[in-house]
């Protein structure tokens, strides 16, 4: 941060002589201190997970959710400044609602990512606002089914216009991550927040691009990765929150839902076990070294 004090970092939308927008970089710092969030896109769904560090014993356990539903098939988790994250969620819900109003169909995950990327980018352009202090992960499962022109009441024409191309595959699981700059990419596995480095390392081991991991496995991996990422921050207790989205024939029937308690607890049990196993191995190695 050699440019601190030169004055180019005091207002948003100002370029420094070497072409940087410092206020956006500082916003990223706010993210880097937040609890770890991850997302996993697998062959039959998407999983979101977040580490919620317990800042006070007086917090009501399980009552403060950090993963939000945007539309029936869309979920968002974020790291960084929580009130900014709520603002992000509100805007995303408005976008999803607006899309339904205009096009009479749910918004696609890619379209939502694009809209929200634009919204965050706009907050880097003007001096009268500040960038968002969050990095958000958007998960969605776009329907593969032929959606009716109208909902449950009254059907559209059973033949004719509909825009479907024979043989073309539509929909599926998607995952995007948006940074405070408005930059976003699609991911197989995404991680942000304090433990993102170790989380990324774990995600890379999973061969997500290979498309072999199932949703049930992904839930267990997500729990384990949050536990691994938390390991560097061991002295503080945390709560794990997870949500998932499957296709229409999967466990959530295409909807974004919280992972059922029983499944989450089982995943946490396995995660703790895996972590203990690692520690033992490390200890063994240490012992061996000692012996040498």
């Amino acid at each position: 941060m050699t440019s601190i004090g030169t004055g180019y970092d005091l207002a948003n939308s100002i370029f420094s002589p070497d072409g940087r927008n410092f206020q956006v970089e500082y916003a990223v710092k706010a993210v880097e201190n937040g609890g770890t969030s991850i997302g996993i896109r697998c062959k039959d769904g998407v999983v979101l997970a977040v580490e919620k560090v317990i800042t006070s014993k007086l917090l009501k356990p399980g009552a403060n959710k950090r993963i939000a539903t945007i539309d029936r098939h869309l979920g968002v988790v974020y790291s960084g400044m929580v009130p900014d994250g709520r603002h992000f969620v509100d805007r995303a819900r408005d976008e999803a609602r607006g899309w339904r109003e205009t096009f009479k169909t749910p918004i696609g995950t890619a379209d939502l990512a694009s809209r929200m990327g634009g919204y965050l980018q706009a907050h880097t352009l003007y001096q009268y606002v500040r960038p968002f202090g969050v990095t958000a992960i958007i998960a969605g499962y776009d329907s593969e089914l032929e959606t009716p022109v109208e909902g449950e009441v009254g059907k559209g024409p059973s033949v004719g216009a509909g825009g479907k191309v024979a043989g073309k595959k539509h929909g599926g699981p998607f995952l995007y991550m948006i940074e405070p700059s408005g930059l976003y990419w699609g991911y197989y596995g995404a991680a942000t927040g304090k433990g993102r480095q170790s989380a990324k390392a774990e995600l890379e081991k999973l061969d997500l691009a290979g498309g072999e991991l199932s949703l049930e496995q992904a839930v267990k991996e997500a729990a384990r990765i949050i536990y691994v990422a938390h390991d560097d921050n061991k002295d503080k207790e945390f709560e794990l929150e997870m949500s998932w989205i499957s296709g229409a024939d999967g466990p959530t029937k295409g909807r974004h839902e919280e992972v059922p308690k029983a499944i989450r607890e089982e995943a946490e049990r396995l995660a703790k076990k895996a972590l203990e196993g690692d520690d033992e191995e490390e200890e063994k190695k240490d012992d061996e070294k000692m012996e040498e």
Partner: protein
Amino acid sequence: MFRNNYDNDSVTFSPQGRIFQVEYAAEAVKQGSVVVGIASKTHAVLVAIKRNAEELSSYQKKLFPIDEHVGIAIAGLTSDARVLSNFMKQQCLAHRLTYGRDMPVRSLIDLIGDKAQVNTQHLGKRPYGVGLLVAGVDERGGPHLFEFQPSGMTEEMVAFAIGARSQMARTYLEKNVEKFAECGREELIAHGLKALKESLVQDRELTVENTSVGVVGVTGEGAKRVVEPFKVFDGQDVAAWIEAVADDKEGGDDAEAEAGGDAPAPAGETMEVDE
């Protein structure tokens, strides 16, 4: 005082990713007198210390009813609190008019959280200089207690305290946090007042002048659901509760307070006259 260049407005991040204006606003909350809130499975209570500006002036109110089922306790700038309080009242009324039901407390809290967040992201606005404890009941899990901060952060708590010297009250609450869920109305008030006492300045005591108690409750579900509407008790109405937690009656930290009966008892005999 040391000044850095990053603390003049709420649209500038410091190099560490902090927003000093928001942090300073949080300091304003600590200037207000202490308020405590606790929720059990059946009730949520708010208790507060009121201050008077000078000997002959009246005491500033700390607890405000929002709707039948919600009330707030404030610490910080009272006038900012009134803006939020009016907004919350309007939202609750509009919800009641449109849907014919109590507004879910979480929905209400989210609205003021969002409102406050906007003030931390736009030049020419300032964060609210007030913290709130919001107690309410709804059909989504019975009684609730929320904390609201100037940053727009809102969290549901089992119990909490904000305002001047509130750390001592929080320590008391943390020590007893496991007990609250099963507490009845009177026990909960007693715990609240005991926590409040922890935060008092030396030589100050709870009196009928400076103590406020607010209670809201719910029992049963479905057809048998009965709501005890949020009500604030002041003056002689709190005398019995104060008496019940008086130092000489305490048998140690864990003593369960035994307040007399369900209704607030009549005035204590040693109380001073107001005028």
